[in-house]
């Protein structure tokens, strides 16, 4: 009798374990519980348009830098701030029109090549209710001195660039490397390392990356210094870059 009782309990336990295992292995569906029930899409539009305008203006700053380099003039990024404001004014009037919000306050854009800061402190009002909105995006890039140099044995010498990025968001950052190529009176920025996606594992931290770029023999034939530009863009297209140089002398 006692044995029958034990086997009854064991059977119940087995059924329980099997049932739990079945439930646990069923395909689970990700619930949207992490998202607030009431999402203000007007606010979402403000955020998204600011993000897009920041990327647009930084891209314009890159174009100005690029043409400045290849044209032999100093790259000017001042026009990018105007592009940012123009973009934002267009978008804020659209938001006003489609949502009936009154958006006041002007965001700011600063691009120093290796630093990008887009900021906004806005007042948004609807039906007499006014609320403040703060938004900021900041990316910073720097070369690690002492760890960036031409390495390897001739003819397979490569440029190892170590750099730090701050403010980029997961999942990735797009990195490109350009070499300044002077041919007579013409100056080119050669894209020698095209669009590699480097991972970003967490938001808000500073990440150190190391890239290696093989150097063509023609650069050694010319001698002197190798000038390079490393450009990093986040997944919205907002970009920063750093310039550097390395001695080619040793051959």
């Amino acid at each position, binding site marked *: 009798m006692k044995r029958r009782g034990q086997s009854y309990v064991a059977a119940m336990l087995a059924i329980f374990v099997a049932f739990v295992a079945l439930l646990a292995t069923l395909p689970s*569906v990700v619930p949207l519980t992490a998202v607030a029930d009431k999402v203000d899409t007007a606010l979402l539009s403000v955020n998204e348009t600011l993000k897009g305008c920041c990327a647009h203006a930084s891209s314009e700053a890159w174009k100005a830098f690029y043409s400045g380099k290849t044209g032999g003039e100093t790259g000017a990024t001042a026009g990018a701030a105007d592009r940012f404001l123009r973009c934002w004014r267009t978008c804020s009037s659209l938001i006003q029109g489609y949502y009936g919000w009154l958006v006041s306050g002007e965001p700011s854009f600063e691009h120093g090549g290796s630093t990008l800061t887009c900021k906004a402190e806005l007042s948004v009002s609807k039906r007499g209710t006014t609320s403040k909105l703060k938004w900021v995006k900041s990316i910073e890039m720097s070369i690690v001195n002492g760890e960036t140099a031409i390495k390897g044995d001739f003819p397979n010498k490569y440029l190892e660039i170590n750099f730090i990025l701050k403010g980029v968001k997961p999942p990735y950052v797009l990195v490109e490397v350009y070499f300044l190529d002077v041919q007579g009176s013409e100056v080119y920025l050669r894209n020698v390392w095209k669009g590699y996606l480097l991972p970003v594992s967490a938001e808000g931290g500073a990440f150190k990356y190391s890239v290696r770029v093989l150097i063509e023999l023609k650069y050694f034939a010319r001698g002197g210094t190798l000038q390079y530009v490393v450009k990093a863009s986040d997944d919205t297209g907002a970009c920063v870059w750093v310039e550097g140089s390395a001695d080619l002398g040793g051959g």
Partner: protein
Amino acid sequence: MGLRRGQLRVIEAAVAGVLAIIVLATASRLAYPRTAYVGYSDHASEAAAILKALADRNALCRTVYSPDGSVAGDALRAAVEGFLPPGRGYRLSVSRLDAGKAVEIYVFESGNFALEKASSSYVILSGCNGVFEPRMVVLSVSGGG
């Protein structure tokens, strides 16, 4: 021995009862998140929550502005469907906002979309990857499923 057998039966019944309660509690706990889809007050809120989830993952930027300038419709649909319960009807459209006009450049409507039961939410984007071209994404969700 009789007394012991009686005691054993009581213990058996108690253990069985406890196990049954544990099974039911565990089952309800495991099964609960599957119904969390319907935790929205209305379809407009559900659509807004989906748009926000996509924006947070930068999926709107990447799919509404593909590298060739068009809308990556399949990717956008897949992203939306990832947040919708199976069988829910929806309509998704992307319009270019230009000179005070909204010109629809992409539209998809699921087979079970019911316009008369639908509610919508929309988001305005300025561009992506350096492109400046304001576009509006409208997601309408209707009952079903």
